[in-house]
């Protein structure tokens, strides 16, 4: 078998020039490694976000201001502020009309440096409805959450997360103490239990205040950022979604669903939307990494052209003893492919190693990060490296095959 002889010969050459072979492969190693790492870390980050969604519970329906495609990202993700959604809209559907809605809450968000006495800390404040603890899982270490009456009365009361509690009251009991948010003094009525990190967010570095208070005193707005609705069972989600849509259209005097100025999504839809964004990002990054493969391929072509020059005499000899042009092409092509393929395999191994390392570091830091090394990325790495070998090996191989045997033999 000629191909087997070519492979043996190519492997021997590769091993005899270890340093040169390695440097030749480096571009491919780095390129394939980058693709594998990006695919794997991308999938890991995706799993982190998806897990975060799942940890909120799959029985949730979200209501967001602004229209959006079914699967595309909501307008608010793009940084557009839509002001059409009000807390009254929530009260319109959460009125006990259908039994599947267990609880609901609206949200507004803000950031501030809050102070208490001499201590201060940067934190998020979250304006919610009184039903918040029934929608999301939050338990109180001390005290209580605010009531509907307090919310209606714009009460200046706050529930603080454990990180905030440690920062503002390292030694004292925060209950009953005051905290100043945006020049308004709130009385602390509760301290939340530690919830841990969720995704990239420290869920304990938050202050919860009544929605109306946050809107009027802290943000000066009358709309809400989004809403969440807890449904009794996942089976009833679509029914609840439809109900909410009908109620919101009534509220907003919309007759044609195409003109909806809101979007209703379940957690699963949210997962899909996030996945579509992260997938896009992942492939974008992988495409950038692929550029280094092209650069590596050009480097290999260059080295192989030099190798043809260096081995002109050998090529002349091979032709003199009966090698046909296509057999010379095959020889050099096999050599190039072996280099790129070996580089690809090394890249896959290193890339997988880095992916495992990243995953274990992320896990140690408490993120729910899945290690994802898909067979498809490994197969892709192998195929891409072989294709690069063919694409960039053809020119040097043809160059070799075109040599005149007499001149090649005389070459010094």
């Amino acid at each position, binding site marked *: 078998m000629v191909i087997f002889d070519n492979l043996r010969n190519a492997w*021997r050459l590769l091993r005899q020039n270890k340093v040169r072979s390695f440097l030749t492969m480096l571009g491919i190693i780095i390129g394939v490694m980058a693709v594998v790492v990006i695919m794997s870390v991308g999938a890991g980050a995706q799993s982190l976000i998806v897990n975060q969604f799942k940890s909120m519970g799959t029985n949730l329906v979200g209501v967001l201001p602004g229209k959006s495609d079914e699967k595309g990202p909501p307008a608010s993700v793009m940084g557009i502020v839509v002001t059409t959604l009000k807390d009254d809209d929530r009260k319109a559907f959460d009125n006990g009309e259908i039994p599947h809605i267990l609880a609901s809450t609206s949200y507004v968000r803000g950031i501030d440096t809050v102070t208490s006495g001499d201590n201060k800390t940067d934190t998020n404040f979250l304006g919610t409805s009184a039903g918040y603890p029934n929608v999301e899982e939050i338990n109180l270490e001390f005290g209580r959450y605010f009531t509907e009456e307090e919310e209606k009365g714009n009460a200046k009361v706050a529930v603080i997360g454990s990180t905030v509690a440690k920062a503002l009251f390292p030694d004292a009991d925060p209950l009953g103490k005051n905290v100043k948010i945006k020049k308004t003094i709130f009385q602390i009525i509760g301290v939340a239990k530690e919830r841990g990190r969720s995704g990239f967010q420290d869920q304990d570095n938050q202050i919860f205040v009544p929605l109306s208070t946050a809107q009027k005193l802290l943000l000066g707005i009358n709309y809400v950022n989004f809403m969440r609705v807890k449904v009794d069972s996942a089976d009833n989600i679509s029914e609840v979604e439809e109900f909410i849509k009908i109620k919101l259209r009534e509220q907003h005097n919309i007759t044609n669903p195409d003109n909806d100025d809101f979007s209703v999504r379940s957690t699963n839809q949210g997962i899909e939307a996030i996945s579509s964004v992260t997938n896009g990002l992942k492939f974008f990054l992988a495409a950038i990494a692929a550029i280094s493969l092209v650069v590596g391929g050009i480097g290999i072509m260059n080295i192989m052209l030099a190798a043809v020059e260096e081995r002109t005499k050998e090529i002349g000899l091979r032709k003199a003893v*009966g*090698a046909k042009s296509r057999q010379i092409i095959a020889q050099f092509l096999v050599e190039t492919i072996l280099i790129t393929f070996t580089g690809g395999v090394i890249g896959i191994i290193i890339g997988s190693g880095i992916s495992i390392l990243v995953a274990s570091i992320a896990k140690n830091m408490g993120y729910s990060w899945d290690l994802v090394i898909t067979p498809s990325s490994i197969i892709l790495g192998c195929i891409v490296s072989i294709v690069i070998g063919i694409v960039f090996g053809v020119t040097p191989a043809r160059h070799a095959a075109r040599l005149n045997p007499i001149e090649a033999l005389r070459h010094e």
Partner: protein
Amino acid sequence: MALIQVVDLKKEYTTEDVATPVLGGLNFSIEKGEFVAIMGPSGSGKSTLMHILGFLDTLTTGKYIFEDKDVSTLDDDELAEMRGSKVGFVFQAFNLLNRVGAKDNVVLPLLYTKASGAERDRRGTELLAQVGLSHRMNNTPGQLSGGEKQRVAIARALINNPEIIFADEPTGNLDSKSGLQVMKILQELNEQGHTIILVTHEKYTAEHAKRILLIHDGLIVSDELVKNRQIAKDKSELSK
């Protein structure tokens, strides 16, 4: 029927529209089993003639008939086929692959044939034994002396059972003792029936052949049988 028949063979090299004649109308034939030396000073065209006869180069006009076949009509692949099956080359500079052992060098031409791995191994071993290098099978050219290298090259030239062995200044890079050894092997091969064409500029070396074609400025000056033929002997035999 002659093995080689050359009729009015001409060769010109054309560079930038200037044609330089190298061979100007040669006529001769070589029979199977002959030992012919093509002799001439450098620049006489003897190497070009050998390249054409060995299918490495093509003629400009005239005819080259090899075993009834008109070589000038063959394409590149067919010429490669002829080189791989009909001729074997022994070069002045040995032209061995430095990174592989003696046996792998010997069997190199078989890579381009259908010979199996076992067949290659058997032939390689056999031929290295024939040139007296059984103990050097796996030594790379760097570990061999000049004479040993040329003997490896001769074994390589024999591996395809060629009709003709072309030896281009085979003793040019060797000391006289190794040169004698090489000439002795070539003479022995001729005794066994191989056709040998030797290219040299030295009269002494040429006289080891049976017939000398003397070439000067691209023309055959004389074509004569060797009267006082040199018979190469090992020094050990000479001292007897």
